């Protein structure tokens, strides 16, 4: 072996029931490098990482870590060997404090009893070093999603591991926090720590990673140095075909005002006024926690509104619950797919038709044959990768789950569709599909609001961009100015920071 690797996986296979998640894959990671792991949703990235960390056992294949044969029977073994992991979409125990969460399984004790003071002090020091503005005794449940993600990162980093796996660490972070994470990564790298970095955000990959390995459908496609491959090549490797246009935005005529908000105020946002037209994609940009989701949740009827008026097609829009909004044609894809999107253990069919059941009644009963037909149609339109619509949503990969969430709102035929982070955790191929759908529906006269923390997406897809800063609208930009290059990422970012 000429190369000096910290982790070598070879011939790893893993099946879940009938699904072959990994087939004879390999992965070689050097110390001190940031190794990107790319692949479509369901390619098997998380599965391989869970095998490395000991949450799953492979069916066949071997691993070598730090020069020694390695096999983790559980996360404890992995942590002992010097591997830690930031898990994808895994919220830590809500009722523990930050200190308790970071030091879970590594508690400070005097003999058998916990030394809470020492642990809090140690944690506080780590938090302060990180510039994380909370006391160590804050409960996790009191933190915002992004802060929780930071705690996860801090926990992983604080183990002094030789290798850290980061499975989509930035999916709930904004630009600023992402940059913060990158500083941390560079620091770790300089100390010789190896990092496996999984993300669907191509820009990040190019910014921080050295090497890239690509998986497709559970197979290993290849490894190469990042500087040797172009973005398009990578995408082709991942999806097995060329993705012609990453942002297939079709410009279409903008129609009448569909929805108008006047002076909306509520928890996390104040005095928000805007209108959105038929055929328009209105982008909302801003930092995480700037109050975009709160605004959308309030419009949709998931949260209360303190004051303000809304109009739909010229008539006042009054809603108490989400059901009122849906009935009137206002629908929303929530940013939190797992908690607000799907009933994982029910079938794709049931999930998809849920909001639009009232229209699929035949007398007292549901017209199940019509339901089946319509769900099959919409899942074909969305290129949903599922063996059958009778399968549980649980069996789908993340991107395909997201498609089911979108499908259910398409079936509800909304006048206004609010998409909150519509492509979070979705691979490039599926992203392009979702974007082209958005274009298609806009062209059919739907008004679309898209909240996103990914600037390329905002800039690539929006007819108009509104930027949030601490609960207020701090800027408005138009597509023509973005296309002409007059409005750049920096311009939008600075208005998100409230500088402009």
């Amino acid at each position, binding site marked *: 072996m000429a190369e000096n690797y910290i982790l070598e996986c070879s011939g790893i296979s893993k099946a*879940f*029931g*009938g699904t072959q998640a990994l087939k004879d894959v390999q992965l070689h990671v050097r110390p001190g490098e940031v190794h990107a792991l790319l692949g479509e949703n369901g390619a098997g990235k998380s599965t391989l990482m869970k095998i490395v960390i000991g949450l799953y056992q492979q069916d066949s294949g071997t691993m070598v870590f730090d020069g020694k044969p390695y096999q983790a029977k559980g996360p404890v073994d992995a942590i002992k060997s010097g591997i830690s992991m930031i898990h994808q979409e895994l919220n830590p125990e809500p009722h523990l404090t930050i200190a308790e969460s970071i030091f879970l399984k590594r508690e400070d004790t005097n003999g058998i009893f916990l030394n809470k003071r020492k642990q809090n002090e140690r944690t506080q020091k780590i938090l302060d070093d990180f510039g994380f503005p909370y006391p160590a005794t804050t409960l996790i449940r009191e933190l915002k999603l992004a802060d929780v993600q930071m705690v996860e990162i801090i926990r992983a980093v604080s183990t002094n591991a030789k290798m850290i796996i980061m499975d989509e660490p930035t999916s709930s972070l904004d630009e600023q926090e992402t940059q913060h994470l990158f500083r941390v990564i560079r620091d770790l790298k300089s100390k010789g720590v190896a990092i496996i970095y999984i993300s669907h955000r191509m820009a990040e990959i190019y910014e921080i990673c050295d090497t890239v390995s690509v998986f497709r*459908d*559970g*197979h290993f496609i290849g490894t190469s140095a990042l500087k040797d491959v172009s973005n398009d090549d990578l995408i082709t490797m991942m999806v097995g075909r060329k993705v012609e246009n990453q942002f297939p935005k079709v410009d279409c005529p903008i129609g009448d005002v569909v929805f108008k908000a006047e002076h909306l105020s509520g928890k996390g946002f104040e005095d928000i006024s805007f209108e959105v037209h038929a055929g328009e994609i209105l982008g909302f940009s801003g930092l995480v926690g700037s109050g975009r989701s709160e605004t959308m949740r309030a419009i*949709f009827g*998931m949260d209360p509104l303190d004051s303000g008026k809304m109009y739909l097609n010229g008539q006042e829009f009054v809603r108490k*619950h*989400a*059901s009122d*909004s*849906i*009935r009137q044609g206002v629908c*929303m894809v*929530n940013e939190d797919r797992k*908690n*607000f*999107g*799907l*009933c*994982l*253990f*029910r079938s794709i069919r*049931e999930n998809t*038709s*849920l*909001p639009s*059941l*009232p229209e699929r*009644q035949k007398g*007292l*009963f*549901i017209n*199940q044959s019509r339901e089946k037909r319509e769900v099959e149609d919409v899942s074909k339109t969305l290129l949903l*990768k599922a*063996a*059958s619509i*009778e*399968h549980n949503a649980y069996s789908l990969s993340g991107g395909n789950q997201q498609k089911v969430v979108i499908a*259910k709102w398409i079936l509800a035929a909304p006048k206004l569709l609010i998409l909150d982070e519509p492509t979070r955790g979705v691979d490039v191929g599926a992203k392009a599909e979702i974007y082209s759908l958005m274009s298609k529906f806009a062209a059919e006269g739907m008004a679309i609001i898209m909240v996103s923390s990914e600037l390329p997406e905002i800039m690539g897809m929006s007819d108009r961009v509104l930027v949030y800063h601490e609960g207020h609208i701090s800027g408005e930009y138009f597509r023509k100015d973005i296309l002409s290059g007059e409005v750049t990422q920096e311009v939008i970012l600075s208005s998100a920071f409230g500088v402009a």
Partner: protein
Amino acid sequence: MASSPKTKRAASNQDRIRSLLGQYGIGIVLIIMMIVIAIMEPRFMTPGNIINVATQISINGLLCYGLCLCITTGGIDLTVGAQLALTSCIIGQTMTNMQWPAFLSILAGVGVATLFGFIDGLLIAKFNMFPFVVTLSMQLVIRGLSQVITGGRAVMLTNDWFTGIYSNKLMGIPMPIIIFVVVTIIMYLMLHWTKFGRYIFAVGGNVNAAIASGVSRFWVIVGVYTISGVLAGLASMIYTSKTGSAQSNIGVGYETDAIAAAVLGGTSFAGGIATIPGCVLGIFIIGLIYNGMNMIGVSSYYQSIVKGLIIIGAVMLDMVMNRNKH
């Protein structure tokens, strides 16, 4: 994609068979039980005894459906035993002591059970209290009320029409079986063919997603506990007619058998998973445990152990046959 549509379809069919096997695999347990009992006691398989079993299961059957719905929304209804007592006492008091017509008495009894089911649902849905806690406490209140109503005394029911509810036959089929079949069909249609049924699964599967999809958690929760109340009321009507006596100490622990039947039938305590055909199988298994032990002549001291072991064993078998559910 690596796999061709063909292999996918084959896999899917296989999956379906496995899932069907998983869903109703408990049916195998039922068949095995029937064979074992029939071998040990040939008289088990006589038409008379089969009708006998079907008649006996009706009370637990109705309770089981109510519990199945509550469990499916992620809750539990521990009041059913007490509801049995309360309805019985109301029927007894109004019919025997106040001379109300039987029909009106039944209406009053079932009505009160419905009301208490509604109150349970209200406390759970409106105040966000845990179903276990609410129904555990309400059960005390409901049983207390039945004691107050009757002063602890037993009331005899002499109305022939009423006592006939249990013993009369329609075309050779005892009334309880007819009631049970009708309720089963209604429950099946409701859970698997209506909007409300879908909403029950959605609320049980992921309440936040259900709300975000426009489902009213409030009405679904209130709905299932109210239905559980109605069914407990009907079960009590059958019970009271069967024993010909109304008293406040009946039904203690009846939720146990109903829960066991629901769970054997594949109802998941994680919420969002249940089928009425599954429940029917579960109800028959529980009924057969009792009837089978009585027919075979298992000593009274061992009956409780046998029952416990059969339930654990069946649930475990179901788990093994149907691994991917969890």
